[in-house]
């Protein structure tokens, strides 16, 4: 499995650079990942990322945009403003979680 240097630490990532080990992430790593894809983190961004982290831990899957909006309390339009173009992918990337996937 490939590893990469993020924020001074070696972390495991998949072919697209999504982190693969939940516990290798911390908020400093998240901030570095955000910077790498041009997202300027604010409190609103962190609220979303923390929801994703907690939800993944409880559910075992990266939440969908709809779940972030209904269970996480940040509406979909807002998510597209915070993480432009591809919020599902960008949120997962910054949160150090697998990107949302289908079965094939």
């Amino acid at each position, binding site marked *: *499995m*490939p590893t990469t240097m993020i924020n001074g630490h070696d972390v*495991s990532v*998949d*072919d697209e650079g999504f982190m*693969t080990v939940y516990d290798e992430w911390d908020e400093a790593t998240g901030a570095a990942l955000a910077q790498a894809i041009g997202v300027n983190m604010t409190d609103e961004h962190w609220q979303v990322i923390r929801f994703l982290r907690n939800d993944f831990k409880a*559910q*075992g*899957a990266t939440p*969908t*945009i*709809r*779940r972030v909006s*209904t*269970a996480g309390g940040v509406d*979909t*339009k807002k*998510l*597209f403003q915070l993480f*432009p*173009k*591809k919020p*599902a*992918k960008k949120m997962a990337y910054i949160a150090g979680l697998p*990107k*949302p*996937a*289908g*079965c*094939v």
Partner: protein
Amino acid sequence: MKNLLILGGGTAGTITANKLRRRLPAADWAITVVDADDNHRYQPGYLFLPFGTYSSTQLTRSRRKNLRKDVPLVYGEIDRVVADGNHVLLTDGQRLDYDVLIIATGVSPRPDQTEGMLGDQWRESVHEFYTYEGSVALARKLDTWAGGRLVINIVDMPIKCPVAPLEFAFLADSYFKDRGMRERVEMTYVTPLPGAFTKPIAAQAFGDTLKEKGISVEPDFMVMEVDNERRTLVSYDEREVPFDLLVTVPLNMGADYVARSGLGNEMNLVPVDKYTQQSREYDNIFALGDANDIPASKAGSVAHFEIDVFLENFQQYIAGQEMTHRFDGHANCFIETGDKKAMLIDFNYDWEPLPGRYPVAGIGPMSLLKKTHLNHMGKLAFRWMYWNILIPGRPMGLPPLMSTSGKRTDLVTAEK
């Protein structure tokens, strides 16, 4: 005498009732099933109805007749589950007490959850094939359709049979070719996921199937509304996809009574332990099949494997022991790829679909992740197996947990 109450007489509810009735002594346990009507549909058949493959009688049987004679079926709409009082209220006022409750009412397509979907173009140029009525209406539409822009869309995940929209695209391509009108149809696949294929090995196996068939993909598309006047799908980030015929998979949600009873998440799915399907809130409630929130595909094959593991756990549960069996999210399904061929995939929580042979390692006779005519025949033959083996709860001879033997696990670099 204890009461086991099963809500829902579909795939999961019926298999569970039939298998448990054989295991539990009638003197100790009453098993009762509740459903609103007597129509048990073979839902995998909905995919083929729009292309004129099946008739209604092949897809519908009596729920009553699918259940063993010694399992009573109560017809009624569920008003709510009173979990703290261990009973269920029906809308006609009936009260059903339980010692153990199994929620197996699945999920349903909810076009009402997307703005404009139920507008004046509904069943005109806006269609779906996730209900019997919808598939029949779409068959009628396709039969007289002159061509134009066909848009195939998934509103959001999770949905029942997540590969069905892809299969629909492949079958539609074949259908239009057979009718000599393929060049008059422009096909677009619009998905909220990052692509039509998201798992690396499967994506490789499908390769350029979509490109070869001339189907373009619009990824990361979150539908905000269906604009009826302009016949256009509009996303939250203001992208627009115009259509002449939209075949959408509406949002899939669990039953409303689950929400009314305070037992559901935001999609009305019952939060359960993913290994035992026991409610996280109430020890004496389990949710089986599509109705729960486990991170597995919503499909009959998952329900079937899950129930085999559940039966073992349930014996321990009623004996007051710890449940030690763990369901692994095992699923397998045939994927129609058009031209009378299909692929077979087999996977679970931890392993993505891999190439190999199934069910016997090295022998098959089925090939995994390969387009073959035999897989297509398997898919068609499965309808008979569903009615005659799966639903009566007879042994299918397939182990419930996924096996990696015979699979190309070397293709996966991720640590397991």
